[in-house]
């Protein structure tokens, strides 16, 4: 009897297995390759011969693979030397190893794209081919990006303390800026953030997890069957995933109670207020503006100020929104889209139509451009 291998379950074991190999003295790059090969073996042999201890199985096979490579290299130098066949009795996988692995793969010396690629492979256990397909680049390019990233961090000690903030930035990028292909990057980002939350007690990790859950809950409602974007106010809220929302709210409430606010928690709080409203009209915009004020204070980001202007427009009327918008740098992408929205609410359809058309020309992605073009067309066609 055969059962298909649970891909997500197997990949969840990767950080622990890799951590064991590195702590036994394997260098990170070689150990990571060995773990990938052990995963391939697992997918092949587990359906007919499922191991009693999957982690132990992966450690043993990966260690042998590592030794094979090491032996092949050392043989060239010292043919007579023998390397022990049996793995030394070593440490068991630990939460500390998992955390160190996240730190290493999101090391500040890596560019964002490299950190993302290395994290998905070495922590997530995805293959280079899957990662390349997810980011629409050739496999050879992604292979080089990953091996270059490994070289970049090769001098970093595995035990070096890291910064949770850099890890969160990488996970945020995986969640927010992925294409939708065979690999569900949003789900993968959530899985990796959950795993991180289990390894470290940090309020912003919980904040990011809540933020992801609350946005993921809206996924089914966010696009129409033809692939076009459905704005928040027009989404069919019955299609929101209530289980994800209640989990997100629960995670958020627990962490807000600790009174160590950060930007992900504040963003999650805004998402939770939207999730809370049974209809767009029932949204508590006054509270949302207060959270944006917190976010401006925490980040000073112009993008946050832009979104705040939308919230002010809803809470205090379009004139107030336009006044808030006047203080925001107008070179920002989406500045004109926000201006168009507020002008239409203020009754100036001609200005709104012109601004929507300009906004479409400045959009950074096709779905948004098409949405903005339709808005301009709607206003121009009556």
């Amino acid at each position: 009897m055969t059962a298909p291998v649970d891909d997500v379950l197997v990949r969840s074991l990767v950080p622990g297995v890799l951590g064991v190999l590195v702590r036994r003295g394997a260098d990170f790059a070689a150990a990571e390759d060995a773990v990938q090969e052990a995963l391939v073996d697992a997918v092949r042999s587990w359906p007919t011969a499922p191991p009693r201890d999957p982690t132990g199985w992966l450690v043993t096979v990966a260690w042998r693979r590592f030794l094979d490579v090491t032996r092949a290299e050392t043989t060239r130098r010292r043919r007579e030397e023998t390397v022990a066949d049996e793995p030394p009795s070593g440490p068991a996988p630990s939460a500390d190893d998992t955390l160190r692995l996240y730190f290493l793969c999101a090391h500040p010396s890596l560019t964002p794209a490299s950190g993302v690629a290395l994290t998905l492979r070495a922590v997530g256990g995805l293959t280079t081919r899957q990662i390349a397909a997810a980011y629409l680049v050739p496999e050879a390019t992604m292979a080089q990006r990953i091996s270059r990233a490994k070289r970049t961090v090769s001098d970093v000690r595995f035990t070096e303390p890291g910064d949770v903030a850099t890890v969160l930035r990488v996970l945020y990028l995986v969640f927010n800026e992925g294409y939708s292909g065979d690999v569900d990057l949003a789900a993968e980002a959530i899985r990796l953030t959950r795993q991180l939350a289990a390894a470290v007690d940090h309020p912003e990790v919980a904040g990011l997890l809540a933020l992801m859950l609350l946005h993921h809950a809206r996924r089914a409602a966010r696009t129409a069957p033809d692939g076009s974007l459905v704005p928040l106010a027009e989404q069919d809220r019955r299609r929101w995933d209530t289980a994800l929302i209640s989990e997100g709210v629960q995670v958020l409430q627990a962490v807000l109670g600790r009174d160590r606010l950060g930007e992900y928690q504040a963003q999650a709080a805004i998402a939770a207020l939207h999730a809370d409203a049974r209809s767009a009209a029932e949204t508590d915009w006054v509270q949302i503006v207060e959270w944006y004020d917190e976010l401006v204070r925490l980040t000073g980001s112009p993008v946050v100020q832009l979104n705040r202007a939308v919230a002010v427009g809803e809470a205090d009327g379009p004139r107030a929104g336009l006044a808030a918008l006047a203080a925001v740098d107008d070179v920002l992408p989406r500045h004109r889209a926000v201006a168009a929205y507020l002008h239409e609410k203020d009754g100036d359809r001609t200005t709104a139509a012109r601004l929507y058309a300009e906004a479409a020309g400045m959009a950074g992605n096709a779905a948004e451009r098409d949405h903005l073009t339709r808005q301009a067309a709607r206003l121009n066609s009556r």
Partner: protein
Amino acid sequence: MAKYLLLKHYRGAPAAVNDVPMDQWTPDEVSTHIQYMQDFAAKLEETGEFVDGQALAPEGSWVRYDGEGRPPVTDGPFAETKDLIAGWMVIDVDTHQRAVELAGELSAAPGAGGRPIHEWLELRPFLGAPPTITE
């Protein structure tokens, strides 16, 4: 993580600094130029930034739909068409600044006299996937 198209024009771009037609270079200068382009692509693959590169024939034809049940109409080439694409390279880079840097490097490909051509390349960002979190 953003993709850019680097467009090279046969015609339609502003004049290059070292603006000598390729058929008037020495054969060695042509070989050096081609080697530079190949090395550039290989280097980008090594940095994990290469997506695609293709060259196009100088002339093509124009095609349009001509109604139900009728074969498409073909026409051209039109000598008066101002813009003529010679080829492209697609890169995947972390920042716009990096894209500009790479385009500048490609524009430095050697031409007549072995000196950089300083040709104008068109740099166009791809429209990517919409971000999940927008509010």
